[in-house]
């Protein structure tokens, strides 16, 4: 058994490496702005940083490479994989479609047919089967290491909230990129950062729940890829409708942008706590 001090040390090393990857992008911002090659190389390194931090921390602390949660564990867990595919898609739909319907602009969706919706779903399924592997770089770190170390220290609620915040802040270089390029005001950039801080705990709770249920990072990898892909897919789908360029739904759009994610965070925290309460205690 490792004590809390060891766990804290391991988590500290991991977070330090991950933070360094974010700082690296700020430090080399000018170089990245002037060279596509530098941008590509540093962006790739940044995307793989959580997984690399996992491997480096395990090596440095001589923890070993057990419990990386790399087995697929498909048998008996197919429903979790299906949920990992469906839920981010539903959440993305919930962000965009209900505000349009509730604000009485259903005619904006006229160009969207059942066939086009089905095409998007099938294309995402196909993409998820082959393209999601790129997200291992993130999930192997966040779900495969950080959560495991954070849970004994901060509990489930703490892991979801602190972990979600750390995960959000790690995205700071990409959220601030437009501002640093001088094409956005600081308040707009901070709004993006704040928005992400509200959204990420929802996904953090869901991915933590998936990882614990299946003892594998792969459902989280798939779900992450679908979450990213569905944003583009739904926006492309809406592009087939007749939404005016100056369309602004106001507060209702903001409410639907954040509320599904906050509800998701609450639901999965309750489920995680329920699962924990049901686990028999060992001496």
């Amino acid at each position, binding site marked *: 058994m490792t004590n809390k001090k060891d766990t804290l040390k391991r988590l500290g090393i991991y977070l330090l490496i991950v933070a360094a990857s974010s700082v690296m992008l700020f430090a080399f911002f000018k170089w990245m702005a002037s060279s*596509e090659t530098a941008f590509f190389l540093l962006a790739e390194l940044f995307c793989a940083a959580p997984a690399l931090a996992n491997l480096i921390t395990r090596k440095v602390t001589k923890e070993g490479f057990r419990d990386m949660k790399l087995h697929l564990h498909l048998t008996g867990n197919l429903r979790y994989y299906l949920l990992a595919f469906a839920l981010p898609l539903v959440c993305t739909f919930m962000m965009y479609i209900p505000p349009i319907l509730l604000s009485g602009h259903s005619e904006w969706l006229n160009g969207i047919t059942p066939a086009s919706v089905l095409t998007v779903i*099938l294309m995402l399924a196909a993409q998820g089967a082959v*393209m999601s592997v790129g997200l291992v770089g993130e999930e192997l770190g966040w779900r495969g290491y950080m959560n495991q170390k954070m849970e004994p220290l901060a509990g489930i609620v703490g892991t979801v909230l602190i972990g979600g915040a750390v995960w959000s802040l790690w995205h700071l270089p990409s959220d601030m990129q437009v501002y640093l390029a001088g094409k956005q005001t600081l308040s707009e950039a901070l709004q993006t950062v704040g928005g992400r801080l509200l959204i990420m705990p929802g996904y953090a709770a869901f991915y933590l729940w998936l990882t614990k249920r299946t003892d594998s990072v792969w459902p989280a990898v798939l779900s992450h890829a679908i979450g990213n892909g569905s944003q583009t897919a739904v926006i492309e789908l809406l592009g087939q409708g007749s939404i005016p360029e100056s369309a602004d739904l106001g507060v209702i759009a903001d409410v639907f942008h954040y509320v599904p994610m906050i509800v998701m965070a609450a639901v999965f925290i309750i489920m995680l706590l329920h699962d924990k309460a049901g686990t028999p205690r060992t001496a």
Partner: protein
Amino acid sequence: MTGLVYKEWKQNRWYILSMILCGFAPVLAVLLFRNEIPHHLNELRTGGMIAGFLAAGALQIMVLRGDDRRLWGYWITASPDGYKGFLRVKYEMIYGMILLFLLSMQTADGLYCAAAADLGMTDTADISGIAVPLIFVQILLRSVDIPFTYRFGSKTGSIIKMICMVAIAILLSVTLIFLMDDWDSAAALAKKLFTGYSSSLLLAGLFAAIPAVYCLSYRMTCRLYLKGVEQYDK
């Protein structure tokens, strides 16, 4: 299961790692032949990609060799994971190899495109548009190869597969010849299928079905494996 993963890694690590090299084939093609064909670098990359795709396919099949022995078949069937566990690890490993090949190709090509942009080459296009469909073709081909290999052994399996492919090709040709008489209606049907949204839907459906076919192939191989073991050499 971890033991089987370890066995596959020890036996096939060079084949697995060679997927990374295959992914670099488009960039290698440009580096090696850029002086001979300096004005057709995009075509060279596409050629390199196809060469890499073929090499990767051959290497993926090679990880199946050596397991078509009767004693191994009996032994693995009696092990705690059973032949189903063994086949599952094989299928997962080959799928992983395909994904590693894609990841490596996209990384190498992304690096090439970035470097080309820095050099002011504005006509460099991303090859992912061709690479991703080819990956689906590769998954489909493997889902055909593996059951044949385990049912009939490596050598006999590849011969029987070849015969089946030729038979299908002949059947398709004959069907096309018969359709010649009614070519207009067939062309109209094809036009209807491959225009606008129906073509996207068809394509999306096909792509989404291929990973499912791969899973079905695993199920089929599980059913055929023990029959195959009886035919393997000692």
